[in-house]
C-alpha cells in the first residue's frame, strides 16, 4: 500500500522540475531503486496511471533502474555484491559488513517535450 504515497511524492517531484523547465509534457521518468529498498516497481506503476492523469506527467513512461546490494567487509576489506539481502561477506564469511549500495531511492532524470516548439526554435 505504501507505494500510493510514494507515487504521490514522485509525481510532485517530476511535475515541479517540468514546470521549472517550462515543459509541456513529461514523456519519460527514470527512477533509481536500490535492491535493499522495499519499494515495488509494479505497485508504483499500478498507481501511476490514476495519479498522473490530468497532470503534466500523464502517460509518461516509468523506467526502473535497480541498483544491486553491495557490502564492504570490515574484516577483510573485500566488496561483495549480494544476491540476497541477508548475507555477510562473500569472501571471508564475516557478518561485520557495511552497506555501500542498494539503499538508493531517487528520481534520476525526466525527459520532457518543450512547451512551445517555435519559441524554442527561435531561441536556438
Amino acid at each position, binding site marked *: *500500500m*505504501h507505494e*500510493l*504515497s*510514494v507515487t504521490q*511524492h*514522485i509525481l*510532485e*517531484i*517530476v511535475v515541479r*522540475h*517540468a514546470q521549472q*523547465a517550462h*515543459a509541456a509534457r513529461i*514523456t519519460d521518468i527514470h*527512477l533509481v531503486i536500490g535492491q*535493499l*529498498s*522495499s*519499494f515495488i516497481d509494479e505497485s508504483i506503476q499500478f498507481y501511476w496511471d490514476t495519479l498522473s492523469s490530468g497532470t503534466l506527467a500523464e502517460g509518461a513512461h516509468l523506467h526502473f533502474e535497480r541498483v544491486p546490494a553491495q557490502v564492504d567487509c570490515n574484516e577483510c576489506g573485500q566488496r561483495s555484491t549480494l544476491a540476497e*539481502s*541477508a*548475507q*555477510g561477506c562473500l569472501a571471508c564469511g564475516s*557478518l*561485520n559488513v557495511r*552497506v555501500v549500495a542498494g539503499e538508493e*531511492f*531517487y*528520481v*534520476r*532524470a*525526466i*525527459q*520532457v*517535450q*518543450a512547451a512551445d*516548439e517555435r519559441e*524554442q*526554435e527561435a531561441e536556438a
Partner: protein
Amino acid sequence: MSVKVISVLENILQANDQVAAANRARFAAAGVYALNIMSSPGAGKTSLIEQTLRALAPQVRIGMINGDTTAASMDAERGARAGAASVHINTGGNCHLEAHMVRQALDALDLSALDLVIVENVGNLVCPAGWDLGVHARVVVASVTEGDDKPYKYPTMYRGAEVLLLNKIDLLPYLDFNTDYFLQGVRLLNPAVQVFPISCRSGEGIGAWAEWLRARALKHG
C-alpha cells in the same frame, strides 16, 4: 519535436525526511527521548507499551502516539488507562506512519511536560521501515509465534532497528522457534542492534529493557 532530458537527482522521500528532521529538532528542544515501535500486527506493541508504562511511569513522564489504519482507538485508550498522555492517529488506510502525521500528533502533546514519547506504528513489517519519523530509536518487536525466519524475510525492517525486542518468550516451550537461527539472521543484518528477549505476559526481561530506556529518557530530560 523538441525533447530534452532534465537531470533531477532528487530523493523521493526527501519531503518526509525534512519533516522528520523538524520533528527531531522539536524533541531535542524539549529534551524528550522518542521511540518508533514497529512490528507485525499482534506481536505485542501495545502490550509492550503498557508494560513499559508500568515500569517507568510516573518517574518518567511518557506521551504516546498510536497509528491505526482506521478510527479504532483501542490502543490509545489502553495507553491512556496505563497513565500516558495519548494521541490517536487515523492513517486513513495508509499502512505506515509518515513524519507529517507525527508532527500533527505532537501539536496535541505538551512536550515540555514529558521525558519520553513512544510512537506505536501501524502493524506491518514492510512499509514503516522506509519512513523516518524523527525519533531517536527504532524498536522492532518480534514475537516467537511469528517464526524464526522473519529477519531473513523482512531484512529492511531488521536492518534499520536500534533495538530488537523478542517478545512472547513465555511461549517458547510450546513452539519449535530456533532462537539461535533467529539471532544469527538479526546479526547478519544488523550487528549493532540491542536485543532484549521479553515476555509482556510474565514480565520476564521487561526490567532490563526498562532500565535501558530509563537511562536514555532521563538523560534527555
